[in-house]
Structure formats: structure tokens, C-alpha cells
């Protein structure tokens, strides 16, 4: 296995005359916690879509473990360990939490095409699903249909689904979006507690959370990567202050 979990090379994408990704060059070493920040419309979610194959880049290549995955379909990338979550809950409303995660585990283990055997035979798969739910404090509600779960629990279920696919690289699109501030800290504590060999990149607007949980920060503006560095470097970077943070630069010193 290589040092770098994920890399992009000259990734470009535009919709008509609107450039949403311009020459994106990223190298994410294994196990590092990255934050991806930038003003609205900077192309952060687009970048996640491009990396995971939900969008096709106009040019450029994407590598997972030094292997070119640019031509693979999203589900093929997921099976190789490149996994994302969504900013807006995208779950299975009528399935219970346990059913949802069991489904993801079955897909990961390649048994989801088996139609002649009972689900209850798959004890390992169900146990693993339950274990993941427990680790995210969802075990008490695992028999509830997803649509009846509290919003914060649904955000955790997003992460549980991603974990069930055994990710090597996990891209979290605003994992705490819409979650009250005190709860979002718990949510990030859960993210911080993820196995160390998983490379995590999360989009987040709350600078306090970014500075507490990220070991490196990528700043995007207008479809390009402006700068990449440690939180301290980003906080003192004059470019970042000028272009992105502007008048709220003082807030950076919080963290």
C-alpha cells in the first residue's frame, strides 16, 4: 500500500462557461484528517462529486492508492474504499437503521445478490451492522424506521452507512449540517474516533470545529485550490484572510 490514499491530477470541470473545478491537484496521505473549506459556491461539493465519480471531470485523473480510478463507476469506487456522505440526508426512509446498515454491509461483502437465502442466516453481517450502529450510539434506536429518527441521529446514520462500506478514504460533505452546535461537537467526536487508517476529508463551515478536528486544511475559492496547510498556516495566511475570510479573520484565532 502506498503512502498516499487519494490523489487528483489536473482535474477540471465546467458547466458551460461556469468553471467549477480548475486544475485541482491534491495529495492526501493515509490517515490524515483534512478539512475542506471555502465560501459558498467555491466548488467543495462539486469536488467530492468529481472524486467519487458522481460527476465526470472534463479532464484530469483521480487516484486511489496510486491506482487510476477515473474511469470507474461510483459504486466500483465505493467497493475499493472511496466513500462519501451527503450534505442533505440521503437515506432509506422506511428501512430501519439496522436494515439500512445491514444492506450496506451485504453490498460490501458481495452477498447482496443472493435471493435464495434468508437474511437471518447472515449473522456476521447483521452483527457487524449492529456493531457500527453501537459505535455511533445508534444501537437503542436501530429498530426504528429511519424517517422516525431525530435529525442528528440521521446524520450519524449517514456516517454509519459510509463505515459499513469499509472505507479507506471517507469524504464527509458537511456532516454536521443542520445539527445544533452542541450536538455537532458530539458528531465530530465520533468522526475523530474513526479508525486511524481511514483518511478523512470533511467540508465544514464552523471554524472552531475545523481547527479542532482537522490536521490539515484545504481552502477552495472559485473552483480552485487557493492554499493547503496546517490550521496554523491557514489562520495566518494573508491570501486566505484577504480572499476568503476577509473581515471575519479574527474568528480564526479562536481555535
Amino acid at each position: 500500500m502506498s503512502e498516499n490514499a487519494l490523489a487528483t491530477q489536473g482535474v477540471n470541470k465546467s458547466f458551460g462557461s461556469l468553471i467549477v473545478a480548475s486544475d485541482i491537484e491534491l495529495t492526501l496521505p493515509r490517515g490524515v484528517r483534512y478539512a475542506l473549506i471555502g465560501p459558498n459556491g467555491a466548488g467543495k461539493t462539486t469536488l467530492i462529486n468529481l472524486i467519487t465519480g458522481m460527476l465526470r471531470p472534463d479532464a484530469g485523473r483521480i487516484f486511489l492508492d496510486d491506482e487510476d480510478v477515473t474511469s470507474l463507476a461510483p459504486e466500483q469506487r465505493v467497493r475499493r474504499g472511496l466513500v462519501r456522505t451527503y450534505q442533505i440526508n440521503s437515506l432509506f426512509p422506511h428501512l430501519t437503521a439496522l436494515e439500512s446498515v445491514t444492506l450496506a454491509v451485504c453490498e460490501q461483502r458481495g452477498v447482496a445478490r443472493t435471493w435464495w437465502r434468508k437474511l437471518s442466516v447472515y449473522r456476521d453481517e447483521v452483527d457487524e451492522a449492529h456493531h457500527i450502529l453501537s459505535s455511533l450510539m445508534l444501537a437503542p434506536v436501530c429498530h426504528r424506521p429511519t424517517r422516525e429518527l431525530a435529525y442528528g441521529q440521521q446524520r450519524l446514520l449517514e456516517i454509519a452507512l459510509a463505515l459499513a462500506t469499509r472505507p479507506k478514504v471517507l469524504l464527509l460533505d458537511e456532516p454536521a449540517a443542520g445539527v445544533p452546535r452542541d450536538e455537532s461537537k458530539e458528531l465530530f467526536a465520533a468522526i475523530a474516533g474513526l479508525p486511524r487508517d481511514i483518511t478523512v476529508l470533511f467540508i465544514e463551515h464552523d471554524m472552531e470545529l475545523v481547527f479542532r478536528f482537522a490536521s490539515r486544511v484545504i481552502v477552495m475559492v472559485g473552483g480552485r485550490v487557493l492554499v493547503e496547510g496546517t490550521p496554523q498556516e491557514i489562520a495566518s495566511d494573508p491570501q486566505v484572510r484577504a480572499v476568503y475570510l476577509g473581515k471575519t479573520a479574527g474568528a480564526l484565532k479562536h481555535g
Partner: protein
Amino acid sequence: MTTETFAGPQDFFQAQLRWHWIEIAFWLAMLLPFVLTPNYLVLASQIAITALFVLSLDLILGFSGIVSLGHAAYFGVGSYTVGLVSKWGWGEPLTGLLLGGIAAGLFGYLTSFIIARFRHLALIMITLGIGLLLVEAANSASWLTGGFDGLQGIHTWRIFNTFRFDLYGYTAYGYSLAVLFVVFLVARRLIHSPFGLALRGIRENGQRMPAIGAATGQHIRTIYTIAAIIAGIAGATLAETTETVSLESLGFQRSADVLVMLILGGTGRLYGGLLGAIVYMVARDQFSGLNPQYWYFWIGLLLIAVVVLLPNGILGGLTLLARRLKVAS
């Protein structure tokens, strides 16, 4: 919804597969026509066959969210296959079912590649198109299919060389019911399998499935093929028990009727489709006796009433009622 507690996480899945006493009662009640209404066994047989056909649509529509307005195409392929094979001199019923299922399954597999690429409205158009194409193809190939007049000269042999298909429908109903029950058992197993869970995932949120590593297209092709096989078996059973096959078996009316029955009974519940078939076919029989000219008027009224009052179909309404009674007691 689920307020029960389960000892272990597996028990939840175990509990889903357990037979409820109502299910057993339902299947026992299916035997009643032999005793109570022996004059209606021909109708009962047609209901059982239609129920099988509705079950096949439920697998794709109710469990996987694939809408179809041309499902009769696969039913008809099954019918014509059995009819032709019988005309050419082989009238053994069980191999007939097999051949009907295989032929419809092949056609289903081929068309599934188009089906898997689309959803919603586009699917309605495509399935409708497939159905219309097949009707006209069968109509123009009258040297093979008998065209508008239907296929002549079908003769079904005795089952196991023993049970002759009689005029009153004893054998026909017993046979259709047995086929329905066996296929139902397979379908019941299927929906409680890992694959069945994946199908429900597709129905709930098809967009999300690739993000958990699911090859959605592959799943859809598989279930569409399985549903086509079951539709073909239903069509084959009808051809064998009635010893006639006509263009009507492929037609739009049948596709529309089966959809109506499924929605009437309740989608995604296995038993909903069976119940829908029973209610619809019995109502049609009674209304047409009452008023031969205008009986579709009453069917229309029934449809509107059910959809307005019971959005989850008859079975959905019954489930709700049962739950209320339980809470009240």
C-alpha cells in the same frame, strides 16, 4: 412502528420471516371454493392465475419501484410459448410451465437492459411501448400466432398422467392454486433475503445505492428477469387451463388491469396483490352480472373510493384497522 424489543439484532430479521396465523388462515381459505362455491371454480382458477401475475408485478413495482404499463408482454410470451408447444404436439403441463417461464424470462432479460437505465415516467412509456410492439408483432405474425383469431388446437395433457382438466375447473383450480402457492413461497423467501433488502433500498432511494457500493442496474436486471419468469409462468398456466391463447393475453388492457389490482390491494406487501386480484375479479364478475353493459362504471367507482379512502390499498387499510383495534383493546 416497531415497538417490540429483540433479544439480538438477528432476531429482528428472524421475526420478519415467521409465519403469522393470518397468513396460514389466508391459504386455508383459498381452499374454500372447492367446498363453498364449486360452481365458480373456473373463476377461482382465473383469480389464482391473475394473483400470480399481480405478485410478479409487485416484485418490480412494490418492492423495487419499477413502474410498468406493459407487464402483460411477459404474461403473453408465456401463454403463446405453451400454446405453440402444445399445438406442435407436446401438452405436458409442468414442462409447459417451465418453457413458458424460460421464454418470458429470456425476453425479460433482454428488455431489462433498457429498463435498468430509466425510472418513473420514462419507464411507463418504455414498458407501454414494449407491450404495444409485442401485440402488433403477434398480430402480424398470424401464420404463427393465429393473429386476431388466437391460437387454435391447444390440448393440455393430464397432470402426472392422472388429473384431467375437467369442465368444472376442479383440476384447473387445484393446479393454479398449487402453482401460485409454490411461486409465492419463492417470492416470500426472495423478499426476506439480502437481495430483497437491496431491492427495498432501490425503492426507498435509488440515488443513494451507488454510494454504498451497490450495482443498482444489475439488481434491477435480476429482479426484472425474475418477475418476467413469474409472469410467464402465470401466462402459461392460463393457456394450459383454458386451452386458448389470444392477443388479449398480451394486451394493454391486461397490463392496466394488473396494475389496478396491485394498487387496489396494496403495493409492496406480497398479500396486497393477491387480495387485489380477488376483490377486483370477484367485483367484476358480480358487477357484470348485475349490469352487463355498464359494469366498468362500478369498477371505476370502486377504484376511486379505494384510492381516496385507503391510500395504501385494501391491505394497508386492514393493517391500520388491526393496529387501531389492538391499541383500543
